[in-house]
């Protein structure tokens, strides 16, 4: 029988592209998107400045990062997020341990967490303004509420997954509640806690920044809404780029610190 082998035409692609096709495709996509953006910016099809040129965005990004007041706003947002995360994280951890540690508590109270978790938290902002004022307090509260639910749900789930042998070992050593939490529960739940904090950070960031866009006179959220009010589109794009880089970077950092990458690989 005649051999019907596949005809192999000599590849026109450079050897680097053949060796690194994924990287080459990524570069191709990025370059295409940037070129399309620049083409759209110069075409005049959209209102002027709605899609500013890459040069204008790059210049705005440089100006934003070189402006010392940007760091004052960045610090304000960072401060609110850090305190919000600390309050929401600790509360979520405590409630998660309480609920996950007992079948009765879990069946009685977990549905509240489970069903309240996906509600849009920003609707609580008017109440937070009344309780904590228009200053950083209400933004911290928004961050804390947002962060609380994913942490509590993850920790409650993590508590149920703890190896019963570890709990029995702790009890056989007559460990008190504090010792059980710090020596048994928390080390055994490292991954669910980190996962909860990672999810919590994302929603804490959103809650805090949205609150800043609604009512504030400082913070990155305020800068974004100010750029909108002044129709300074290049600055708005530059701020959004900075925000996304910070959010995705922080998310990846927490995952890496918690060793989540190693779990996925193993």
């Amino acid at each position, binding site marked *: 029988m005649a051999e019907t082998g596949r005809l192999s035409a000599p590849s026109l692609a450079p050897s680097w592209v053949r060796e690194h*096709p*994924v990287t080459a*495709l*990524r570069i191709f*996509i990025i370059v295409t998107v940037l070129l399309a953006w620049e083409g759209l910016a110069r075409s005049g099809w*959209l209102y002027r400045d*709605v899609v500013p040129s890459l040069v204008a965005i790059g210049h705005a990004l440089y100006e934003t990062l070189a402006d010392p007041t940007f760091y004052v706003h960045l610090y304000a947002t960072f401060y609110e997020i850090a305190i919000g995360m600390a309050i929401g994280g600790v509360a979520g951890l405590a409630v998660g341990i309480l609920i996950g540690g007992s079948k*009765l508590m879990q*069946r*009685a*109270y977990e*549905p*509240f967490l489970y*069903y*309240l978790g*996906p*509600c*849009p938290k*920003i*609707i*609580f*902002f*008017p*109440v937070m*303004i*009344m*309780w904590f004022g228009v200053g950083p307090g209400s933004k911290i509260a928004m961050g804390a509420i947002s962060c609380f639910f994913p942490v509590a749900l993850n920790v409650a789930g993590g508590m149920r997954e703890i190896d019963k042998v570890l709990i029995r070992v702790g009890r056989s050593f007559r460990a008190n509640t504090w010792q059980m939490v710090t020596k048994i529960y928390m080390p055994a739940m490292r991954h669910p806690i980190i996962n909860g904090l990672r999810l919590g950070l*994302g929603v804490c*960031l*959103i809650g805090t*920044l*949205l609150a800043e*866009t*609604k009512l504030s006179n400082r913070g990155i*959220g305020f800068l*974004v*809404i100010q*750029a*909108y009010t002044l*129709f300074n*589109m290049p600055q*708005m*794009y530059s701020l*959004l780029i900075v*925000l*996304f880089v910070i*959010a*995705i970077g922080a*998310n990846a950092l927490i995952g890496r610190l918690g060793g989540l990458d190693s779990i996925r690989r193993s």
Partner: protein
Amino acid sequence: MTRPVPFSQRRYFPAVLGLGSFAAFVIAVEFLVYADILNRFIIPPPSDVIGAFPRVIMEEHVLARFTQTALEALAASVLVTIFGVAGGVLLYQFTLLRRATETWVAAIAAAPLVLMYPLYLVIFGRNATTIVMMGFTAGLAPIILKTLEGLSGTRRVLINVGRSFNLTRSQQFWKILFPAALPTIFVGMRLGLIFALINIVGVEYLINFGGLGQLINELAERYDLAGTYAAICFVILVSIIVFALTERLERWLRPAG
């Protein structure tokens, strides 16, 4: 004769405990407000909030607002489903594209996309399109990832059965891959709907336009405390109902075992 089961060990005891605790909390707040321990100008008595429900429903046209939010959520969900499923299928069919962009899609899913709402305001204006597009943007990434996960998770034996029947590429997709991936795709659709709904209500509140989100903003700006709390409770109730319904539907779609 069998001994009666103690009340604390009955099946419904946890639910009674949970709801009872909530009722006790509400009664405690009522008492603390009337005792002037809690400031009634910050926290209205729960009885006032309950009393405000009929007023908010009748005078603030809650049904019309609910319909508007529901329509926005529906429009966003339809868009998310069409583009999300298509995106997932595209990534499944082209392995190189998948390897190049899957981490990007995951990063977008984790990014605070809702912060782009001022940008959307500029592009689409202060109208329902901005709200729908915001919901669409927020819900897109999860459904792409879930569609991809569902298609990739199709059991090898099913694919081999399709091959043994000499199915064409299109038949293989519609008869084997898609039905097998449907439960996972529905999980993605549910996530997409929830993300869209959260963002829709949030943006309605932030830009003071649309349905239920705007209602909360308006009542808060009027300093109608009881009304604001009642509207928030109403939105929570709607979210819980949508969440529970979609969850039930997902369980129904999931294959047994």
